[in-house]
């Protein structure tokens, strides 16, 4: 595989396949394949369609996907923080994942 160390810029139309909470994404520009952890299929679809995103936008997108975030707020925030941490550490979002 080429470009194993490069950063994936999420954008519309990237081929991906999601199994459970993990996904693989192919970047035709670099030829690289990336393993994304702790993302659901819905989240990945939204992010790929819209990224790069600001943290606030990302949060809103994830909120939009949850029918009633208040009902399971703790779980939602945990999942969001985990996703943000991973994405921020790899430079896939435009602001640090802090202050949630």
């Amino acid at each position: 595989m080429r470009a194993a160390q490069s950063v994936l810029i999420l954008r519309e139309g990237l081929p991906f396949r999601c199994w459970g909470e993990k996904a693989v994404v192919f970047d035709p520009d670099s030829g690289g394949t990336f393993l994304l952890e702790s993302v659901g299929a819905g989240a990945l679809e939204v992010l790929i369609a819209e990224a790069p995103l600001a943290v606030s936008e990302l949060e809103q997108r994830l909120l939009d996907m949850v029918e009633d975030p208040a009902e399971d707020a703790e779980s939602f925030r945990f999942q969001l923080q985990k996703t943000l941490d991973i994405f921020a550490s790899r430079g896939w979002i435009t602001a640090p994942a802090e202050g949630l």
Partner: protein
Amino acid sequence: MTLAALDDAAFVAALASEGLSFRTGPFVCRLSTRADRVSESLKLLYGDFPVVPAAEFADFPVQVRLGTGLRRWYRPQSHFIVATQRPFLPLPADQAFPLLEWGLNWCVSNHCHQYLMLHSAVVERFGRALILPAPPGSGKSTLAAALVLRGWRLLSDELGLVRREGGLIDSLARPVSLKNSSLPAIRAFAPESVMSTPVHDTSKGTVAHLKPPADSVARMLEPARAGWIVLPRYTPGASAALEPLDRAEAFMALACNSFNYGLLGQEGFNLLARVVDGCQCYRLRFDNLDQVTELLSSQLEPMDAG
């Protein structure tokens, strides 16, 4: 007609002149050599392989040539040649047969991009292929040898050939390469198994090749659908154990253990995803061969069984 059916004189004469053509799965190899070590091991290990008429196209016209001049007497060498190309430096003459095997692997892995090629052992049962992707030293060839000696069908100990159209896996069913501690382990596991004479001091240590079962050779044109992906890891002292593996991680393991995934681009991605979709995926650690073959044979059932 098989190679074993040729009488010795005709066998040696064909090898020494225009070459002897034989089929290994989807490929035809035409071999020319005067090296006794090669002809003896060929007859022993490839005896069940079908002879192909000399006029038929050969995918790999190869020679194993012994050094000439003073080299015949002082540290004699063997050379691997495919068409007019010499992809390797010469090796000591006693390594001529391993050199042929390594050379044939090189021919396939560098030229056969009509396949997605996985660096993995592949065996089959119930019409489903068990893919064992792993880097060298993980024990995949030893495990594949043990499984085929317990009734699984050998597709390859080294190269998983995934068809780009349809995703079926083709068989090579060539001899299984074993090295170092694998040799006494397989001998103890299956004393009746047929192996070439061990060659010492190669770049991989001591190596020998296991004759593929006759049934695997007879069925080498029969493809299999991927059924399981198992990442094996030889772990001294460990009890054999299967642990479920995320499909995304299995995907990455296959991609990282492929010869040409990067070359195939998005088509390779889509094809690999399709293979993974159809498989149950596990990590495996093992030490004892009886234990691990029993575990895999009892635990791995096709997804659509029953």
